[in-house]
């Protein structure tokens, strides 16, 4: 699964640390999600969607092997 969280973050002009604090996780978790090394739960994805004010599909996309 690929994602465009980094792009969404850039649009809002916030750092990984800022986003982490807003949705209540560690900066390392945001980093792992952005790099595709960790797939977040539905709750966490929806929290991000609420913050970015867009649906989850806007920044998460399934790949062929998923």
């Amino acid at each position, binding site marked *: 699964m690929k994602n465009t969280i980094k792009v969404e973050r850039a649009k809002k002009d916030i750092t990984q640390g800022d986003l*982490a604090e807003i949705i*209540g*996780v*560690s900066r*390392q*978790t945001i980093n*792992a999600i952005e*790099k595709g*090394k*960790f*797939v*977040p*739960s539905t*709750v*966490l994805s929806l929290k991000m969607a609420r913050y970015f004010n867009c649906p989850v599909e806007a920044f998460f996309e399934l790949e062929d*092997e*998923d």
Partner: protein
Amino acid sequence: MKLSNLNILEVGDYKFRRFSFGVALVFFIYDMLVLYVFADSEVWASLRVFINMLMSASLLIAITCKEKIDDERTLAYRYGAYKLTFISGLTVLIILTFLRIDKGMEPIRGMIVFYVFNAIMLFYFLVYKLSMRFDMKWVLVEPLYSKGKDGRTRIIMIGFALLLGIGLAASLIMKILT
């Protein structure tokens, strides 16, 4: 398994971790002193079981402490490390038992129990920390987090443990029969 249910696996605040490891280290040094320096003293030696018990308790507290920021990723890795440690620990115990029986040694008991228990706890902590540090996805057990060939590792490990168990059982039966 819900990730929120895993909160039960945490006991202490992250601040206790270093302190608990420090206490465990002091007990370990004491144990080594008794073993190699004061080996002749019965008074010192009699305290070894008690000291090892405290060392195990300190280690247990240290490894179950929360992270500074505990989130679903830490919980997922923690659960993955627990599962991997359980499978590996079981495998090692079976191998140790098999080897000791094969060489005509006593079964695992006495002070060795503490050493094995402590080693398993340290192994868990190492797996947990390293998997977190290097994002080792194969440690994670949720199907969502592992795809492709990652799931095979677990199957191989479980298969290996089962084979060893069967081997041990066969060895025991052979020994009884002869």
